[in-house]
């Protein structure tokens, strides 16, 4: 008896044989005792397996009570946080945009730091030996309209209306007034003109060389005319007038630092009006002025302000993203 015979017996019990197969198998069952015994044991086995009772589930799988309904929670905190983040983002945007638009003009560094930076420049000003400058550094933001009052000791030239022409490059040399060069004793005033020479001007280097050698004004043809010590810088120059030119510069456009020597009260006779706008009417232009200021103040403050503005904008973007995320989460959360 082999597996095929057993398969036939199994199918015979289930009535799954064809008529031919059944007939052949029945003939063999009549003649083969082993096959008959195998069929009986197999039938008993199937009977035993089939007699297994239908089992009852140990528990009911149906839910008789309705499921508890969970009341949706109103999550207030994420929404408040979202609104607060959005408001903070808007404020940061405004602040950042304001800083970037103003170009950092409202947060200029103190004049003292500017002067130090100027002194630290490679081709920085060479202070004339006779120049006595007292640094009364005043933050530019707090400065009144630039009024350089040079207090004279009273020995100033009577009608020394020292109009310091703050010009650029060649203009300075061309329009140089010899009266400015008049050596005087007394207090010196160093008026700083912001709208000055463009650094690429060739005359500037000459003037710088001249000022280094003799401390004269920054002009090609000026050194021999100008015993007045001058301080020059690549981007501007200081004019030290021994005459007290109470320089009243209507320099709202040029928030130039002024360094005055105020040891004595000003005299009315000695008032030199420094009008920057007139001085700038020549070769200079507002962009040059801005460049000048930037060069004098150094790039760091503006860069710092720009970086602050960008940082504020970036913070605004970040907070806006957080606000949007919180909003979406509060919407999708149950």
């Amino acid at each position: 008896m082999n597996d095929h015979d057993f398969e036939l017996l199994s199918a015979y019990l289930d009535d799954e044989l064809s008529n031919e197969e059944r007939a052949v198998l029945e003939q063999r069952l009549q003649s083969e005792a082993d096959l008959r015994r195998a069929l009986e044991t197999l039938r008993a086995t199937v009977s035993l397996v089939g007699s297994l009772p239908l089992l009852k589930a140990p528990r009911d799988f149906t839910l008789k009570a309705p499921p508890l309904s969970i009341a949706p929670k109103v999550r207030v905190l994420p929404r408040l946080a979202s609104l607060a983040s959005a408001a903070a983002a808007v404020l940061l945007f405004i602040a950042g945009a304001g800083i970037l638009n103003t170009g950092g003009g409202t947060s200029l560094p103190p004049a003292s730091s500017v002067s130090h930076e100027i002194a630290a420049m490679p081709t920085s000003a060479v202070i004339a030996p006779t120049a006595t400058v007292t640094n009364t550094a005043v933050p530019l933001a707090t400065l009144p309209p630039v009024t350089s009052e040079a207090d004279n000791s009273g020995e100033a030239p009577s009608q020394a209306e020292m109009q310091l022409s703050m010009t650029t490059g060649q203009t300075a040399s061309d329009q140089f007034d010899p009266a400015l060069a008049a050596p005087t004793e007394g207090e010196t005033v160093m008026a700083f003109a912001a709208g000055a020479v463009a650094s690429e001007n060739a005359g500037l280097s000459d003037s710088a060389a001249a000022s280094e050698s003799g401390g004269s004004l920054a002009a090609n043809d000026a050194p021999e005319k100008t015993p007045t010590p001058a301080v020059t810088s690549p981007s501007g120059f200081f004019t030290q007038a021994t005459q007290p030119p109470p320089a009243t510069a209507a320099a709202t456009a040029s928030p130039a630092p002024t360094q005055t020597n105020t040891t004595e009260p000003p005299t009315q006779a000695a008032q030199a009006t420094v009008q920057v706008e007139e001085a700038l009417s020549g070769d200079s232009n507002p962009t040059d002025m801005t460049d000048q200021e930037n060069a004098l103040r150094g790039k760091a403050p503006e860069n710092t302000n720009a970086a602050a503005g960008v940082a504020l904008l970036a913070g605004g973007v970040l907070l806006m993203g957080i606000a949007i995320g919180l909003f979406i989460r509060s919407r999708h959360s149950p």
Partner: protein
Amino acid sequence: MFSLAYRMMGDTYEASDVAQDAFITAYRKLGTYRGGNFRSWLLRICTNLCYDAMRREKRRPTISMDELAPSPEEDAPLPDPSMTPEQIAERREMERAVQACISALSPDQRVVLVLSDIEGFDYQSIADQLDTALGTVKSRLSRARASIRECLQSVGELLPAQFRL
């Protein structure tokens, strides 16, 4: 459903889990029912879940807690209410022996044996449920029955006389 799962799994807790999963699956897949015998459709789902459970058990053998679990056979209805307690005990003994032999089968043979000899499906229905050929069902069933017979003959001395092969 539970009875099929228990015969397949041989464990009360696992059979309960499979039966519950089968009902949940049937509820979710109710849209896939395309007519026909609904009982066969349900048992097919249960059979497939039993297959998955047996594969997991094969990979990760677990210690049976069946000794602690109440045997569902204890609560099974008596085939004859007039049976004496001794007869009832002998019958319970036989049922446990058969279940043990069924549990010793391979999953393929076990499924075919349960669907055929316990649930009463014909070969073609089993082949349809298992997506196998009719000849495969026939051969698996014959081998399963042969194995059960040998198993019951080996424990024949422990069985009551009327159940000995």
